[in-house]
């Protein structure tokens, strides 16, 4: 596979990263929309964030600029904070309602 080797020698092209990122993002969206377990939904959100992170890093590498990587750190920090708060909320919800089904938690209405 000289072509593949050649490709790898010149570095993985940006489009591969972006395609992987898009696939991961789409998976995250699909999971977010169609799963009912809150924990799964939560994990899907993380998946989407990381898909975006991947494209940030890829672009940073392509443009040889560090700002994309720095942005990734911010996203990770936010994601960590969000995970802490989100999990705490999920715990409380479970304590109060004994369910993790997202469709049964509709207090935002009214």
């Amino acid at each position, binding site marked *: 596979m000289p072509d593949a080797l050649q490709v790898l020698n010149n570095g993985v092209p940006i489009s591969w990263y972006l395609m992987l990122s898009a696939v991961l993002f789409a998976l995250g*969206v699909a999971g*977010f*929309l*169609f799963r*009912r377990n809150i924990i799964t*939904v939560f994990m899907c959100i993380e998946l989407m964030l990381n898909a975006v992170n991947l494209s940030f890093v890829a672009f940073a590498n392509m443009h040889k600029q560090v700002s994309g990587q720095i942005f990734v750190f911010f996203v990770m920090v936010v994601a960590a904070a969000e995970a802490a708060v989100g999990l705490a909320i999920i715990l409380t919800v479970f304590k109060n309602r004994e369910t993790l089904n*997202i*469709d049964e*938690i*509709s*207090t*935002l*209405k*009214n």
Partner: protein
Amino acid sequence: MQNLWLIPALPFIGFLINGIFGRKLPKSMINLVAVLSVVLSFGWVVKVFMTAGDLAAMPVTEHYFTWIKSGEFQVGWDFTVDKLTMIMLFIVTGIGSLIHIYATGYMAHEEGYYRFFAYLNLFMFFMLDLVLAANYLILFVGWEGVGLCSYLLIGFYFVKKSATTAGNKAFIVNRIGDFGFSLAMFLIVVNFGTLSFSQVFSAAPGKPTETLTAIALLLLVGACGKSAQIPLYVWLPDAMEGPTPVSALIHAATMVTAGVYMCARSAVIFTHAPAAMETVAIIGLATAVFAATIGLAQNDIKKVFAYSTVSQLGYMFLGVGVGAFSAGIWHLMTHAFFKALLFLGAGSVIHACHGEQDMRHMGGLKKYAPWTCLTLACASLAISGFPFTSGYFSKDAILSAAYGHAPWMYWVGVITAGMTAFYVWRAFWMTFWGDYKGHGHPHESPPSMLAPLIVLAVLSLVGGFAFNVPHILEGMFPIAEGAENMMLTYISVVFGLAGIALSYYMYVVNKELPEQIASSLGGLYKLVYNKYFVDEIYDATVVNPMITGSRTVLWHGMDQGVIDGIVNGVGTESKAIGGVLKLLQSGNIRSYATWVVIGSVALLLVMGVVEGVGR
């Protein structure tokens, strides 16, 4: 510095003390504060008079601070004293002091004693401000202030419905006049760029006659409101709902003469607007004769004197209108003496009869209240123009000036003088002669009430030649072409005496006659007895259409229809839109997420279609 500000400030301090602490003060203390503040003010007027020197050559003007400053236009808080002001100051503070003393006796048993004196002192403050003002705006402050106090004091017995409506009527009718006054001030500002008397009057002769006529006529509208002239006189007879000292001070001696004072003060404007002068004279004469005829048939003693006041104010306007300004002021002064006395005497009579005001239930009081009878006789002589009483001089001065202007005005004035003598003496005979027809035992009034009566009686008798106003004011006003003819004087005296004699014949000698005349006149008598139905006409043509219009157009149409409609419409529309939008808010997190996804996909599509995805 003469410290002119002290003159109004003293009553104002009295007002503050009685108004704020009066509720807790004993009556003797309230009396002391109220009377002393006005007497001190009178004392300060005397002091200014003694030390000011020649006021004719050098009017005293004091500037305290600049009140309004807008570009070139400035209004200062300025007071000025010239001879005209001096006369007014003496009248206001002098008669004010007497009436305050009288009121301590008259109001002794009334509720709200401190309130009464607080208002009365406040009135003195505003009236003195009006008189001392050196520009139209300061005058207007006093003008509005006395209107306010008049309203408060007419409605003094505010639990009585008739008193509060009378207060409202006085206030609202005065608004019409004040509107005219405001317009006059605007015109003055536009044309002269100042409101100061001295600047306006020095510039006035150079202005076009049309402008001056417009200003003078608008000032006249203001004066008609305040001084109860046709067509705005209707509030004054109703104002008699107030306590009698108020009727004497505000609605006879001082406030209602403010219009005459203002016209005399603006003499320069009026003399350069002949058409306006003619209007003043005709309105004055018409009011004099009109009110006098109504006075002939009234039975309430205060109503008789109220119409008499309207009529006498008409005389003053006649004087001003025919150019005899100083005669008008002279009559203003003598009228203040004898009309204050008439009202205070009427108050004393009402006091004696335990609150009865209907003359048909009085009579025979000369036995029970001799001093009141004697003093009222002096006042009645003076108002009838009996020779050498005060009214004789001033009325004569006005009538001879009227003859010089137009003889027919003199004749109408003389007939009015006859009627005046008739109705005043009619009231006198009905009250003091015959037998007592009221309830209880009538009694003489206390000394605090009698002393002012006696002072005023002396003034009514000698005030005419003791204070020769035209002589004092010589040079201030252009000289009116008076007709120097003693015959005119004799005729008016004869008419006055005839009025007295006729009233004596009708109400003492032949008591059946008035009723016979009344029944033989029939409709005409009814017309006069009901005051020409003017109030009813005003109700039908102005008041009721206004109320109906306000109710249907402004209330139901504008307020409830348009304004409430807009406000409620915004509410209902928001609710309807919200009703649709709330369907989005399912509370289901996954549906929200779906909307977000749909939204972002749509956004991407739009970006792709419109300009392609950004490079």
